[in-house]
């Protein structure tokens, strides 16, 4: 419970012709945490199997199909049979069909856009009231039809044209800012230059001119549009059909390909020679025999060796805690996982974290509300389940401390009865008592940490080292306690002794660090600070609300209720954030610094999903 799962190191050596089968077996066993082999002079890393490239490219195709057909690849999986190769073939077929649909659709859309432009040109020609055949220009006349920017002054264009030639005709459609100009062919170039200054954009009239009349052209456009739209509908239907037929297949294939790629690329982590390969890794002790037996029974040319775990070797960490305290592993991951040699404090945090939280909030009305809130959230949001489990434990502890302090939403009496209480927190007379309790909690918590540190050091470096590194801190505190109780001489001697031990243990740094232990203990005064803030806030809210109520008027009662509801909502929000962070901090900084190193890497066995 207090230790990470015990691991064994294994060395597997096999011939290359076996490698695919051995990898498949290891994958299905899902127990081996592979140590990546780094390329050395003698031993290269392995080459991935040929299926890796095949599956990777198929996966790319599959994903593009899925995005086109809008298939959600994370949806549930139907079991469909079929080998890898046949799957790749089917995917290639679907891919080419999807690509055909896609390109056809794009062409159609381009044509639809052109139809829209032609329709616009035709409408403009209609508004000019000019026959479509005249839009071509004649033997002596050049025609300009197009849009210009209007902001250059309304009459400017006329004046400029006048300067070039008198032999011209211009019409203008204000609402489209479109102009139609006929001009003597000899002046074409000059007029074109002039128009380009007005950002002239000619309309394409070629199709319109070749039609019989503007009306018949518009009719043609309409029928062409209908045809294209119908075609697009057909394409959409085809895509829909493909989606219906293959979405299950695609989802399943994606999973299979991903797995196959993982297997096929596994040799990249292996050491390899021309005919053989070798892989090192960690297996949890309780599965070690099973893995060994299965591998040895299944394969002939395989050699398995147990390796002693080195002293400073980084062993993958799998935390093992009872189900009830395992949510608190979340808090360990947030900080850093323990290393292989030290204690896993998850189950300790399961007790101490809610205690500190509850001590700070300590109101059974708040506790009840928070409990209900987090139970609901836990059901609703799957991703945050661990965090909500932690908060549920904290809420229960809040309720327990609420009974001890006799508080219900800041009220200390209910229906005229005083709630039973051990300590009235809202009374300012009691601040010093609460401060003392907070510091005593600190002393207990920190010394518990030192004790855990002693155990860690004892396993690592032996008794004497553990003694000077951890117990001397306790002796130092004992000396300080004696001085507080006015035994100055004895206290001084004991503290000096502890200081000497620390210097032996940690060198000059020990002296510099001496005051830190008292700083750490004083840091637990935050328990009192947060209690003070939370409780006084609740009391003030209640006091004002009662004042509003006792005014008797309807407005007063409504204001009182509003104040009560919103005030307590805000106070609860603050009461969750503050105590949560500070309880966490007291653990991470004050508690963990006494025994915890951390830095463990998570155990990720080959063949399991994250």
């Amino acid at each position, binding site marked *: 419970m207090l230790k990470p799962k015990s691991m064994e190191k294994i060395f597997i050596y096999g011939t290359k012709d076996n490698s695919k089968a051995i990898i498949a077996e290891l994958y299905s066993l899902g127990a081996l945490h592979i140590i990546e082999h780094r390329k050395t002079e003698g031993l290269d890393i392995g080459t991935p199997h040929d299926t890796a490239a095949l599956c990777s490219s198929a996966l790319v195709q599959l994903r593009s199909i899925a995005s086109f057909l809008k298939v959600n690849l994370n949806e549930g999986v139907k079991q469909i049979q079929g080998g890898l190769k046949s799957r790749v073939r089917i995917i290639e077929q679907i891919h080419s069909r999807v690509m055909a649909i896609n390109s056809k659709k794009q062409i159609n859309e381009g044509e639809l856009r052109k139809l829209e432009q032609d329709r616009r040109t035709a409408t403009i020609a209609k508004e000019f009231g000019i026959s479509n055949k005249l839009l071509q220009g004649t033997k002596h006349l050049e025609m300009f039809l197009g849009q210009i920017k209007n902001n250059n002054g309304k009459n400017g264009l006329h004046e400029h044209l006048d300067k070039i030639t008198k032999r011209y005709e211009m019409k203008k459609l204000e609402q489209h800012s479109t102009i139609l100009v006929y001009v003597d062919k000899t002046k074409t170039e000059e007029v074109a230059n002039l128009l380009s200054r007005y950002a002239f954009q000619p309309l394409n009239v070629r199709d319109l001119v070749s039609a019989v009349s503007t009306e018949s052209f518009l009719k043609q456009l309409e029928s062409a549009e209908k045809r294209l739209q119908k075609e697009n509908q057909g394409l959409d239907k085809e895509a829909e059909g493909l989606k219906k037929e293959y979405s299950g297949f695609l989802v399943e294939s994606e999973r299979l390909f991903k797995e196959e790629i993982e297997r096929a690329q596994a040799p990249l982590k292996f050491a390899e020679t021309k005919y053989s390969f070798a892989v090192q890794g960690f297996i949890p002790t309780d599965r070690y025999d099973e893995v060994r037996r299965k591998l040895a029974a299944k394969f002939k040319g395989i050699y398995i060796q147990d390796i002693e775990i080195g002293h400073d070797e980084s062993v993958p960490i799998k935390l093992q805690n009872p189900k009830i305290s395992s949510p608190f592993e979340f808090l360990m*991951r*947030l*900080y*850093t996982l323990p290393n292989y040699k030290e204690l896993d404090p998850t189950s300790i945090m399961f007790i101490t974290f809610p205690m500190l939280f509850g001590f700070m909030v300590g109101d059974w009305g708040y506790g009840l509300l928070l409990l209900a809130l987090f139970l609901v959230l836990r059901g609703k949001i799957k991703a945050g389940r661990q965090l909500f489990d932690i908060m549920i434990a904290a809420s229960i502890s809040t309720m327990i401390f609420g009974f001890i302090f006799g508080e219900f939403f800041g009220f200390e009496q209910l229906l005229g009865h005083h709630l039973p209480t051990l300590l009235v927190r809202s009374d300012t007379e009691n*601040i*010093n008592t609460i*401060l003392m309790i907070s510091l005593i909690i600190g002393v207990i918590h920190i010394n518990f940490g030192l004790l855990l540190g002693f155990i860690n050091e004892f396993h690592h470096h032996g008794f004497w080292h553990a003694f000077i590194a951890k117990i001397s801190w306790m002796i130092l505190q004992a000396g300080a306690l004696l001085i507080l109780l006015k035994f100055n001489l004895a206290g001084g001697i004991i503290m000096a002794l502890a200081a000497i031990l620390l210097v032996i243990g940690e060198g000059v740094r020990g002296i510099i660090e001496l005051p830190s232990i008292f*700083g750490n203990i*004083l*840091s637990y*005064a*935050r328990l009192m*600070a947060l209690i003070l803030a939370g409780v006084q806030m609740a009391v003030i809210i209640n006091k004002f609300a009662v004042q509003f109520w006792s005014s008797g008027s309807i407005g007063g009662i409504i204001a009182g209720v509003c104040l009560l509801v919103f005030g307590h909502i805000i106070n609860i929000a603050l009461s969750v954030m503050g105590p949560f*962070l*500070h309880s*966490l*901090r007291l653990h*991470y*900084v004050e508690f963990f610094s006494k025994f915890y190193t951390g830095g463990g890497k998570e155990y990720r066995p080959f063949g399991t999903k994250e």
Partner: protein
Amino acid sequence: MVVEIGTGLVALSAGAAIIGTAFAAAIAEKGIGTAVVGAMAEKEELFGKGLILTVIPETLVIFGLVVAILIIGMAAA
């Protein structure tokens, strides 16, 4: 309400203890917070450690609070 000058001075000095430490904590947290957000942009997993580092200077203001309470306590005695 007439308050004796001594009482006022006690209140002021208790306030000063909080003011000073609160400013100190704020300045320290400002620097750490900025750096942590920067580090987190590079590496998301640093959230836990960043959080801890950010709240470390909070201890300063706690000390201030303790001192303030001690001042008031001494004055009352």
